[in-house]
């Protein structure tokens, strides 16, 4: 995955709170493999029902501004795939659900916690505005104003470097092996009893 430092793009508003993962991508699309592309599944039901859905009006947008508690619900990473494959790089909200935010960072999508997200939503209305995001300074510039992004350092580093956790972790292979040995010695009961397999059909 390629890392990124700065992003400039059009911001579009979706002024709803608690946008859940079932809205981001309805369950029926989740058996597709990633290679098929998830962009078309984004907000599938909402788009079908709303004649004038903001994302359809502004297909070029790459920054989504939404209400608080964005991404609540399930752990389905497909919700992030749908946003990324539809061209989004950044979601701006007052708050995010924990699992969604972690999934986003793992896929190069910035969950930008911005305290003034509500005011930005109001300013955008049904239009768009150019937005500029800088990970280094953790700032968002939009509609002539600058906002701080609450950005944990590990998220910033992962996004900037496009880091893959598996590579990072493998550097600690020996430490992990030693931990596993010590755990097995000290608490052998933490390994599943072999008896269980006897019942296996």
């Amino acid at each position: 995955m390629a890392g990124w430092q700065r992003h400039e793009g059009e911001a579009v508003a979706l002024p709803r709170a608690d946008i859940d993962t079932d809205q981001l991508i309805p369950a029926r699309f989740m058996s597709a493999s990633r290679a098929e592309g998830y962009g078309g599944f984004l907000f599938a039901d909402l788009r079908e029902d709303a004649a004038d859905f903001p994302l359809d009006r502004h297909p070029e947008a790459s920054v989504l501004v939404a209400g608080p508690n964005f991404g609540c619900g399930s752990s389905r990473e497909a919700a992030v795939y749908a946003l990324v494959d539809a061209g989004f790089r950044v979601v701006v909200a007052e708050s995010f659900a924990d699992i969604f935010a972690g999934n986003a960072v793992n896929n190069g999508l910035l969950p930008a916690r911005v305290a003034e997200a509500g005011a930005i939503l109001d300013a955008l209305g049904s239009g768009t505005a150019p937005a500029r995001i800088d990970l280094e300074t953790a700032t968002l510039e939009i509609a002539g104003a600058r906002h701080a992004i609450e950005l944990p350092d590990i998220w910033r580093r992962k996004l900037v470097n496009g880091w893959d956790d598996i590579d990072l972790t493998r550097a600690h292979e020996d430490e992990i092996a030693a931990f596993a040995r010590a755990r097995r010695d000290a608490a052998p009961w933490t390994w599943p009893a072999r008896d269980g397999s006897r019942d296996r059909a």
Partner: protein
Amino acid sequence: MSRTLLDKLWDAHEIRVDDDGTSLLWVDRHLVHEGSHHAFAKLAERGMPVARPELTFAVADHYAPTRGREAVADPAIAKMLERLERNTAAHGIALFGLRDPRQGIVHVLGPEQGLTLPGLLVTCGDSHTSTHGAFGALAFGIGATQVAHVLATQTIWQRRPKAMRIRVEGALGPGVTAKDIALHWIARLGTSGATGHAVEYAGSAVRALSMEGRMTLCNLSIEGGARFGLIAPDDTTLAYVADRPFAPRGAEFEAARADWAGLASDADARFDREVEIDAAEIAPTVTWGTTPEQALPITGRIPDPGALDGGRAEAARAALDYMGLTPGAPLEEIAVDRVFLGSCTNARIEDLRAAAAILKGRHARVPGIVSPGSMLVRAQAEAEGLDRVFTDAGLEWVGAGCSMCVGMNGDTVAPGERCASSTNRNFRGRQGKGARTHLMSPVMVAAAAVTGRLTDARTLMEERA
């Protein structure tokens, strides 16, 4: 220094901490289901093996057909099930597949098989993994990238959450269940009320819950934003765990028991946040909107959005529009089209017993299905004759799986239909496109089946008394 239960579990699994405070944690049990195909694809891309197949267990649940299992009719579903079989066989992972008599929903099966134990760290690519915290395990849901990471390394990077404690003191009234405790606190604190926190449940009302009730409570933690739910193990926990197929036996069990004895928050441990709830104040609770926080006692009325504050008013208006409800209407007058009794939240044997007690000798006015949490729960229920209570009432008794909780297997609620459901999410379209979901406990689902509308189960219980 005094520590919380969360601290103790965290410290016991911490391999290292990075400068920024992110911990690399050892994973004792990794549970996977059909949705893990993305993660297996990531491994395949890199040509990597599964690090610890003996600590990984797979379950067919999300796409499991609840009927006609002999020949899976839908090719898309058959493909998902085959993919899971192929991936687990290739990596030497034990699979509880569709034809296994122990098959069931991952969060029912794990504890039932003794794969979930106090003191373990359990991960699964499913947000309701918080369920397993009912045993005093550190259990949390992860996304596909993290599933791939656990498969590849048997570890996970995670920041320690803040510690929150919800104490529920006193006794629950008749007809009031663990589900109502959960809906009550989520209605009070909101769906993001516990975001960033691990919630430890404590207090006499929690101690009095069975393991089934504790699992229901921890299961719903995520609906209040908490990725982790926790309950300190006690005699109830030990009695449940002993003699489960994969649980330790003999001397190993004794050693485990000694370790588990320390799994409680120290008396003077500090929590980042404390919430007190009086059990006597909790009524049977139902949701009226499209998030679990939009919930009220069954005796209440649909709220007037105009009386709520700004953001909530807007959300309530949109929810009522979707749900087709009018402000001011009594909840008990809302007619339902069908019922669903199932899911990892409320489809364990105790849930089925409680619902059957209401339905016995009565008829359901609306159609519905009862899907037990696992095939072993199903067998137990049949041994007790509960299946006949459900079918005599006119409900359909089907196989185990996620079923109508998420609709992936084809069990869906039709557009515009209203469903009284024992599940965990009333999100728009969760049970099918355009479906209107009301969350409630199993006894409340049974009561709604009998009257064809949302109903205070206590009324039906009193008729019996």
